[in-house]
Each structure stands twice: as structure tokens, then as C-alpha cells.
């Protein structure tokens, strides 16, 4: 009981501290500093419709590279932690109840739409909300759907690993190309900016986001598969 009261006190203290900050906080009336700079200069410099995408891919490209690395490390950690159990003898083969027939049919009908929707999201990342991270999550959801409905569904490991490593390497390679041909690492301007608002515009942003999307999608699928088995 004392422990619980202590925990409650700590939580309330934190909330009170935050509320103290909240009372003195004034809502901003206008964009400030770096955000103003980004919004003003971005359409002429990079030519992406979606400012958030431009920030994620180009202005804060190193950040995103770090995030993708963290994701990769997490996926590797899950794989390492869960694969050691396989060497122990299994008590018996697990029996799954098969999904109903309608669900199977529905999966066949819907899975191309889901994966295509993911591809659409990361191809259109610079025009509409979305991008590599969302598209990767949608593709992983499609894979999850297949896992749920067909419990014995197996991913092709060789293709998965190949896709993941190629996407990661190409991502870095595109960054180095930006360093050589344009102003800096992950600069998108070594490809032509194109017509503002078209799919093939904004330089290398769609290319980079495609690689990020493929990488995120394969990594999340790998995590899911490791958790399933």
C-alpha cells in the first residue's frame, strides 16, 4: 500500500510539474525561427508539396537515417532474442484452427489492394500526407493480415533479406550521390526538380522515400514473423 501511495505521489508530482509549465505557457501566434525558414524557402529550394516530407527527408535527413538504424537494431534484437528458442526441442506441433472460408477469399481479394495502397502512400509522399514510414506500416499491416488468416504462411527469407539490405544500401548511396552531385548529404537536387505537383518531381525525394518505405515494411514484417513463431 505504501508503495502504491509512493507511486501515486510520484505521478502526481510529475503532472503538477507539467501543469505549472502549462500555466505559464503562451500559445504561439506565428511561426518562429526555423519553421518559418523551412516553410518560406522549401517550395523554391526542394519543390515538394508536403513540407513535413521535405523536413523528414532532406533538412533532417541524418535524423531519419538514425531512426532507420534504430529500427534495424530493434528488428535485429527481436530476431536474436526469439530465434534462440528454436534450438530447444519443441514439445509438439502446434495446431491452429483454420480461418473461415470467407476470410480466406476476402484475403485474396483485399491483399493486393492493401499492399498497393502502401506503395501509393510512399510514392505520393511529397504530394499528399504519407511517406515511407506510413507506407511501410501499411505494407506490414498487409503482411500481418496474411499471417492472421493463414497461420502457416511463410515469407521468403532470402528475398526479404535481399530487399531489406538493398533498400538500406541504396538509401545511403542516394545520400552520397547528393553529396557528390549537389550541395550535401541526402540533398535531393541532383535529379531535376520537375513540374511542381507532379509525381516525378521534387528531385530525389520519391526515390529516397521508396527506399525508406521498403526498408520499414520489410523490417516490421520481419519483427512480426519472429514474434509469430
Amino acid at each position, binding site marked *: 500500500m505504501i508503495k502504491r501511495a509512493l507511486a501515486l505521489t510520484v505521478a502526481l508530482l510529475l503532472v503538477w510539474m507539467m501543469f505549472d509549465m502549462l500555466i505559464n505557457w503562451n500559445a504561439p501566434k506565428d511561426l518562429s525561427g526555423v519553421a518559418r525558414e523551412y516553410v518560406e524557402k522549401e517550395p523554391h529550394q526542394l519543390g515538394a508539396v508536403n513540407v513535413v516530407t521535405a523536413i523528414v527527408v532532406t533538412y533532417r535527413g541524418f535524423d531519419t537515417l538514425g531512426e532507420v538504424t534504430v529500427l534495424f537494431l530493434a528488428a535485429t534484437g527481436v530476431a536474436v532474442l526469439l530465434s534462440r528458442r528454436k534450438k530447444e526441442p519443441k514439445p509438439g506441433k502446434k495446431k491452429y484452427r483454420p480461418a*473461415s472460408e*470467407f476470410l480466406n477469399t476476402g484475403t485474396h481479394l483485399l491483399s493486393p489492394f492493401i499492399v498497393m495502397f502502401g506503395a501509393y502512400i510512399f510514392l505520393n509522399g511529397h504530394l499528399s500526407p504519407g511517406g515511407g514510414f506510413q507506407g511501410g506500416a501499411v505494407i506490414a499491416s498487409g503482411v500481418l493480415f496474411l499471417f492472421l488468416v493463414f497461420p502457416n504462411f511463410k515469407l521468403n527469407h532470402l528475398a526479404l533479406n535481399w530487399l531489406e539490405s538493398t533498400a538500406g544500401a541504396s538509401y545511403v548511396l542516394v545520400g552520397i550521390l547528393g553529396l557528390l552531385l549537389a550541395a550535401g548529404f541526402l540533398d535531393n537536387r541532383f535529379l531535376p526538380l520537375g513540374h511542381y505537383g507532379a509525381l516525378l518531381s521534387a528531385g530525389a525525394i520519391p526515390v529516397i522515400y521508396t527506399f525508406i518505405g521498403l526498408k520499414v515494411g520489410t523490417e516490421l514484417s520481419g519483427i512480426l514473423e519472429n514474434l509469430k513463431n
Partner: protein
Amino acid sequence: MEALRLFGAIVALIGSLFLFLGALGILRMPDLYNRMQTGTKSTTLGSILTLLGIGLYHTDWFLQTFILVAFLVTTNPLSSHALARAAHFAGIPLTKKTVRDRLAEDEALEAEKAEEEADND
């Protein structure tokens, strides 16, 4: 043009009424299966009418809302069916008023048959 907008608004209003009805239905029905019935039907029609109403209200968006409706109509009964099947296998009881449960009867029959076969072997 104004008439179309008014019509769209009325359709959306009816749709949201059905959404509310579905929510009320899952609150008031006696057991899980009846709740699922009201929930699925009312929310499906409600979302169809709401989205199409907005599509009529803002005519440029009609195709988009139509695609949304197509996906919702496909996925919603599927998830409801999966949940009903799962609930039946998880052994969630029906109400007291239930007349007959053919599925449970047939499953009991099959289990008996399997036992007999096991005895024979």
C-alpha cells in the same frame, strides 16, 4: 446547386442518425450476437449515407467518398463474421430466449462421431 447541397446535408444527417442508432443498439441489446447484428447493419448503412451525403454536398469529392464506401462495405461484414465465429468458438453464451442452436448441435454430433471412430480403431 443549392438543392444538391441541401439534399446532401439531409442524407448525411440521416446517416449520422443511423450511426447513433447502431451505437445505441450495441448498448441496449441483450447478448453479443444481437449487439453485433445492430452494430454491423446500422453502422454500415450509416457510414454509406454519411459519406455519400458529404460527397453530394461537396461534389468534387464524390469519387473519393465512393471508394471509401466500397472498402467499408467489403470489410465491415467480414470483420463482423470473423468476430461472430470467434465468439461462438470461445463459448460466449447466447441469451436465455434463444430457440435453437443448430451449430452447437451439429458440433456435438461430429464430436460424438469422432469419438465413436476413435473407439472403433
